[in-house]
């Protein structure tokens, strides 16, 4: 008997019951509740992300802004802030990736995966929580923008549509960050991987600087990648005629193109995240 150990049962021991587990909706809400509480009770997260955004905005608005020409009637602050609001989603997404990676690293994901709940609930719950957090981050970014002199010239409907579009981008990029966090496996790795991916996308786009001012090659990359149509769409919606005058196509062209990008990112990275999460 080297392999198996057939052991004598101890009689008279009660048997624990079966845990039915929570349903999809209820478990998703529970997972989301944890995320929101974690955020609300970690002041560093709230304060530092806000300060970081503010420093960033102040530098571009006041230190670099003077050297950047928008080649139109649009003032630089009105050019910058819509781009800043869009890219704020990406910078904020680093927190998501790091959070996911920490959960993997510290066994939290394993614990959730060992519970009798639909595995989708873990991802859906995070998504729900991030909608709430994203709304918060958008409000902060818009508030900061207003404080440094941003005055949207577009219609009220346009401004609302711009915020809505930002939420859509946020929900799409969410999956890039979740997949990144799952793959990275450690908080530090997640920070590096996502930082490396986000930095060129943000800076080599029309978010802070018109792509027309970039040398060819860089400019082509800037025009092809998703952040440029996203920034252009949001800017056109926020600023109305002055913003539209800077770009070659209509607002609906950029909105349509950026929505296509968002859909593609959602499908590809959502699939990757689910695949990675379900792997065992």
């Amino acid at each position, binding site marked *: *008997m*080297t*392999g*198996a*150990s*057939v*052991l*004598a*049962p*101890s*009689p008279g*021991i*009660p*048997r*624990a*019951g*079966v*845990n*039915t*587990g*929570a349903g999809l909706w*209820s*478990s998703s809400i*529970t*997972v989301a*509740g*944890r995320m929101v*509480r*974690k955020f609300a*009770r*970690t002041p560093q997260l709230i304060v530092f992300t806000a300060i970081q955004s503010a420093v960033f905005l102040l530098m571009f608005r006041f230190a670099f802004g003077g050297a950047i020409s928008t080649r139109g009637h649009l003032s630089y602050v009105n050019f910058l802030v819509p781009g800043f609001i869009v890219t704020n989603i990406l910078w904020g997404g680093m927190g998501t990736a790091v959070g996911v990676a920490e959960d993997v*690293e*510290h*066994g*939290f994901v*394993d*614990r*959730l*995966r*060992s*519970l*009798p*709940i639909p595995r989708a609930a873990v991802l859906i719950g995070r998504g729900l929580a991030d909608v709430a957090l994203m709304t918060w981050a958008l409000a902060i970014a818009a508030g900061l923008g207003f404080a440094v002199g941003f005055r949207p010239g577009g219609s009220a409907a346009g401004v609302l549509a711009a915020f809505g579009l930002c939420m859509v981008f946020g929900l799409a990029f969410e999956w890039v960050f979740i997949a990144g966090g799952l793959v990275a496996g450690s908080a530090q790795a997640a920070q590096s991987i996502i930082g490396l991916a986000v930095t060129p996308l943000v800076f080599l786009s029309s978010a802070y600087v018109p792509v027309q001012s970039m040398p060819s090659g860089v400019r082509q990359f800037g025009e092809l990648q998703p952040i440029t149509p996203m920034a252009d769409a949001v800017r056109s919606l926020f600023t109305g005629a002055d913003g539209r005058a800077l770009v070659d196509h209509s607002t609906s062209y950029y909105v349509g193109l950026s929505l296509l990008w968002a859909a593609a990112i959602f499908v590809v990275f959502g699939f990757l995240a689910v695949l990675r999460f379900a792997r*065992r």
Partner: protein
Amino acid sequence: MTPILEARGLTKRYGKTQALAGLDLTASPGRVVALLGPNGAGKTTFVRAVATLLRPDAGTLHVDGIDALRKPASVRQVIGLAGQFAAVEEAMTGRENLEMVGRLFGLSRKQAKAAAVRVLGQMQLTDDADRLVRTYSGGMRRRIDLGVSLVGTPRLLLLDEPSTGLDPVSRLRLWDAIRSLVLTGTDILLTTQYLDEADRLASDIVIIDHGTVIASGTPTELKTRAGDDMIEVHVRDTDQLPAVSGMLATIGHDPRVDVPQRRACVAVDDGSSRLMDTLRVLDGQGITVEDISLRRPTLDEVFLALTGKPAQATDDSPEQPVGA
């Protein structure tokens, strides 16, 4: 009676590493089973397979009669898992963590609250229930983590190295908590690198190495297997150890010398008569013996006898004195 756990020929390979190499294991209900082995023996891989976190390459695995490969979702209804890290939310209180996981186990809000109160008592955390876990000590974190896996009263609780990194007092408290669980109908499979932990906690010990079971049985059975008795000689002067060791080699097999402790020991078959022989010869050679004893082998010695290498082969695990 359906075994709580039944594994047949489990294999799992990661690249070049064969984590499980045809592991067979059967455990009956009402027992605490300890999986004992060095780092990399396959303990964690096996626990993850039982927890349905990974899928074995081959073999069969049944948990409480449920096929874990075909019906992982049903297995999750009867297990609880506490992994190597305290997987709790630091920004929530102990009570909130318990209630959250209680809800996920499918309890109503009211049931989850009641379960949290029960578990807090069980884990002796009632006084600290409403503090954020972030402020807990290492031992408290471990206990709340263990507690979280208990809010659903699992039939099989999986504990992967539960006492790693704990101070002796916290360890004892954790052991008490674990022992009390069996009485409530929760069977336990725990992994450990600590021989004394397996010895004190488990009704059955399964020793694994290189992904297979190399020995199993009750702590007493395993100690018997390694040789009947141990003769241990303490000398006053370390210069005399080589002579003692040479002498012991003639009455038993492969004596071991522990210079800092000034002692040598050997496994023998016929303990009491060999003890007399030893004393006589040592006296004849003029060796001053400070202490001589006949005792049962420790699990450390059992492991050495069964695998040919010490259990504490890794350098990150704390040193276990020979014969401690």
